[in-house]
């Protein structure tokens, strides 16, 4: 008997170990799906939007290094449109026509991080969407009547505006602080001079709605740290904004280790009204053509708040009274009070300063530290209509719901996997809707049909309406969602056709007015596209032919005179690397040099009617 005992127990232990290590407990296993059939059905009903009906929300999800914006419908999670912003897109001719090509400024890609809606009184007004490019330091604005980008600006002195864009309560400004510190003007300076010569410049960008133009109002030469996330204040804190920063160690190499040493980094708290006034009072230096505030020289308006090491997200509560920061490497959320901060500033409760910026005492501004058990990697926080907070836990792959007033953990739901941001319905406004939250997951292995070693990323829709949070839908997404914004669909008022613009000298609205004009070596074509033909010169023997000489500069102005919704025409020259789009009623221009002689067919790229295939012409270039 005694002999058998070790053998039996050994076998049992082996079996247990094998089960523990090799059995498949993954939630995606089919046996479980069958068991959950009724739950799946209920969830399906919650997200199903029958054909003919429309979603309740638009989701604008940043497309990361695709340079695009992905538009989804919620709750169906159907992908509706991809809007190119920083990268060319042949599907829409973006980056080929004159206006978008000029906006691209010679760049071929961008890293679109944070979309932000224009706001009125702290609520989305559905007019514009802003976005920033970490890849090439730019800012863009998209018109939401047409879902097209109207302006892109380069932001000088900045390298990677990661923390942007977050707009102030009435879209007065959006702030673009830099992720990578560089010398002013990106001049050469050895990394040994990092602390003296490098700066983390923040730009205050304004938007002129009438002319649809972005502009830089002023910049602030912040210390050479990495600025990560920011949020504008609301209501009582409306003149203020907050942003997190790491690498206050000012490390210049192996940041993984060297920027993770200090126990505390900072939140930069600033009063943009005061900075605006300083600029008005001439308290700035003029560098690289920008009005630059140097905090060590031009005092005021900026403070540092100590925060747990390497913070990532910082979010202002809907009532504007608090801001919540999460330490990426310190597993806790900290609730700070704006009112306490204002008092501390008034009473000068400072614990020294860094680079001329006063540091507010941590105890004077901290309200509570919240640390849900075993929740790791808190990143970003969104809010519901009750003021409850939802924080993504990157490392423990879950969303934690908690009460910012009491610090009590209310609910937790696992997501697959590694949520970076999350977005609640209008969750960063003064009046969040509650209802839905979407986890923007960085990793989605095993969730969808395999497409090889690199899996799609995923977005998971979480129902906030019940007592418990519930994941009710999951959608694969192209690389890579960073942040997203969710807006009530009825706030967006799109147009169906472009109105006639009689003042546009490039537009021709009737066939008879079409013409080809030559000025020296410039050829100007004023043509129309209509179902199912191009007419470049109605009086010519072949109205759908353009003939030029090699070396001519060619300007093709094309107007779509089908004032009928969804009748979009494309214009491509076969073999000439050109493709533009004219939406109903729109006039668009392509400008290029005919540097190749030969015969090049022209065709309509955007399916327009039964005779779309016949909508062609010829571009002849005489040698």
């Amino acid at each position, binding site marked *: 008997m005694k002999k058998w005992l070790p053998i039996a127990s050994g076998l049992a232990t082996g079996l247990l170990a094998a089960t523990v290590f090799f059995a498949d407990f993954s939630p995606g296993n089919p046996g479980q799906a069958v068991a959950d059939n009724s739950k799946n059905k209920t969830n399906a009903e919650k997200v199903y939007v029958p054909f003919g009906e429309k979603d309740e929300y638009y989701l604008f999800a940043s497309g990361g290094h695709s340079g695009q914006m992905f538009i989804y419908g919620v709750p169906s999670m159907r992908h509706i449109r991809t809007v190119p912003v920083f990268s060319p897109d042949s599907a829409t001719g973006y980056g080929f026509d004159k206006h978008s090509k000029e906006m691209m400024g010679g760049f071929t890609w961008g890293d679109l991080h944070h979309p932000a809606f224009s706001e009125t009184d702290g609520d989305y007004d559905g007019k514009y969407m802003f976005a920033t490019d970490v890849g090439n330091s730019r800012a863009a604005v998209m018109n939401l009547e047409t879902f097209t980008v109207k302006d892109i600006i380069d932001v000088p002195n900045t390298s990677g505006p990661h923390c942007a864009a977050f707009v102030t309560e009435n879209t007065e400004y959006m702030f673009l602080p830099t992720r990578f510190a560089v010398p002013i003007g990106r001049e050469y300076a050895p990394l040994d001079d990092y602390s003296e010569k490098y700066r983390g410049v923040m730009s205050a960008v304004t938007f002129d709605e009438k002319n649809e133009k972005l502009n830089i109002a002023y910049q602030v030469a912040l210390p050479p740290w990495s600025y990560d996330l920011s949020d504008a204040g609301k209501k009582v804190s409306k003149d203020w904004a907050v942003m997190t920063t790491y690498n206050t160690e000012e490390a210049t190499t192996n940041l993984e280790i060297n920027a993770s040493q200090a126990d505390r980094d900072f939140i930069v708290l600033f009063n943009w009204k005061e900075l605006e006034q300083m600029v008005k009072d001439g308290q700035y230096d003029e560098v690289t053509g920008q009005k630059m505030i140097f905090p060590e020289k031009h005092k005021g308006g900026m403070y540092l708040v100590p925060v747990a090491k390497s913070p990532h997200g910082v979010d202002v509560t809907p009532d504007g009274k608090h801001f919540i920061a999460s330490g990426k490497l310190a597993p806790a959320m900290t609730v700070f009070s704006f009112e306490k901060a204002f008092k501390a500033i008034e009473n000068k409760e400072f614990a020294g300063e860094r680079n001329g910026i006063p540091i507010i005492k941590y105890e004077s501004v901290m309200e509570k530290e919240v640390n849900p058990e075993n929740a790791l990697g808190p990143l970003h926080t969104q809010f519901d209509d009750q003021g409850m907070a939802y924080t993504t836990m990157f490392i423990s792959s879950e969303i934690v719901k908690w009460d910012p007033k009491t610090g009590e953990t209310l609910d937790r739901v696992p997501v697959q996997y590694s949520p970076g941001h999350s977005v609640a319905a209008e969750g960063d406004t003064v009046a969040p809707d509650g209802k839905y939250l979407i986890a923007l997951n960085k990793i989605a292995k095993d969730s969808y049909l395999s497409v090889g070693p690199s899996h799609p990323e995923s977005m998971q829709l979480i129902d906030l309406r019940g007592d418990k949070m519930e994941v009710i839908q999951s959608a694969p997404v192209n690389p890579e969602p960073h942040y997203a914004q969710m807006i009530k669909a009825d706030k967006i008022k799109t147009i169906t056709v472009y109105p006639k613009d009689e003042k546009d000298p490039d537009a021709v609205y009737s066939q008879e007015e079409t013409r080809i004009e030559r000025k020296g070596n410039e050829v100007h074509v004023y043509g129309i596209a*209509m*179902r199912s033909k191009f007419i470049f010169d109605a009086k010519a023997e072949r109205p759908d032919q353009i003939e030029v000489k090699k070396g001519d500069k060619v300007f093709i102005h094309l107007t779509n*005179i*089908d004032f*009928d919704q969804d009748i979009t025409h494309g214009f491509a020259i076969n073999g000439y690397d050109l493709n533009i789009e004219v939406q109903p009623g729109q006039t668009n221009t392509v400008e290029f040099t005919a540097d190749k002689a030969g015969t090049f067919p022209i065709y309509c790229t955007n399916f327009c009617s*039964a*005779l779309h295939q016949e909508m062609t012409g010829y571009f002849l270039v005489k040698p």
Partner: protein
Amino acid sequence: MAGKKLSILSSGLIAAAAALIAASLFFPWWGMEFFAPQYPEGLNIIVYPDKLEGEIDIVNGLNHYIGMKGFSEENFPEFTYLKYLIGGLALLTMITAILRRKTVLYFLIGLFSIGGLLGIWDLRRWLHDFGTDLSPTAPIKVDPFVPPIIGENTLANFITNSYLGTGSFLVLAAFILILIPLWKDR
């Protein structure tokens, strides 16, 4: 008999008819609505005495596939004088109401009837003209057709519905109003 004047009531009815005819100038007289799977919201041709309304450009764009001539206000000389004819009729009706003479009323009714019949004949002529004079080089060949003045017609993937507009009904009502005195003052 001829010397007997129409009653005040009859005169009032005729005056009301004059007002209705004048009012009809500001309403559509006839229309046609087109439906197709890709146009579930419908396309319209709305005809006023002096202008066209509706999605004329879109209808023209589609009609060119079957080689139909384009609709435009310039194509219909009626638009230049129809409003004067109708205005004139309203004026004559008003004069009839003021004169209160039966013979004048007979004349007016006669004029009205002839005018109405001419109008219907003209509309039918146009419908025939547009539906049968199709370009021989059109990309899509269809048999010549004549849409009805009132009612449904199917052409390719389009279901068309022609109908009388408010203006026509006003004039019809005016006609009834001027017929009433015939019976009242018999």
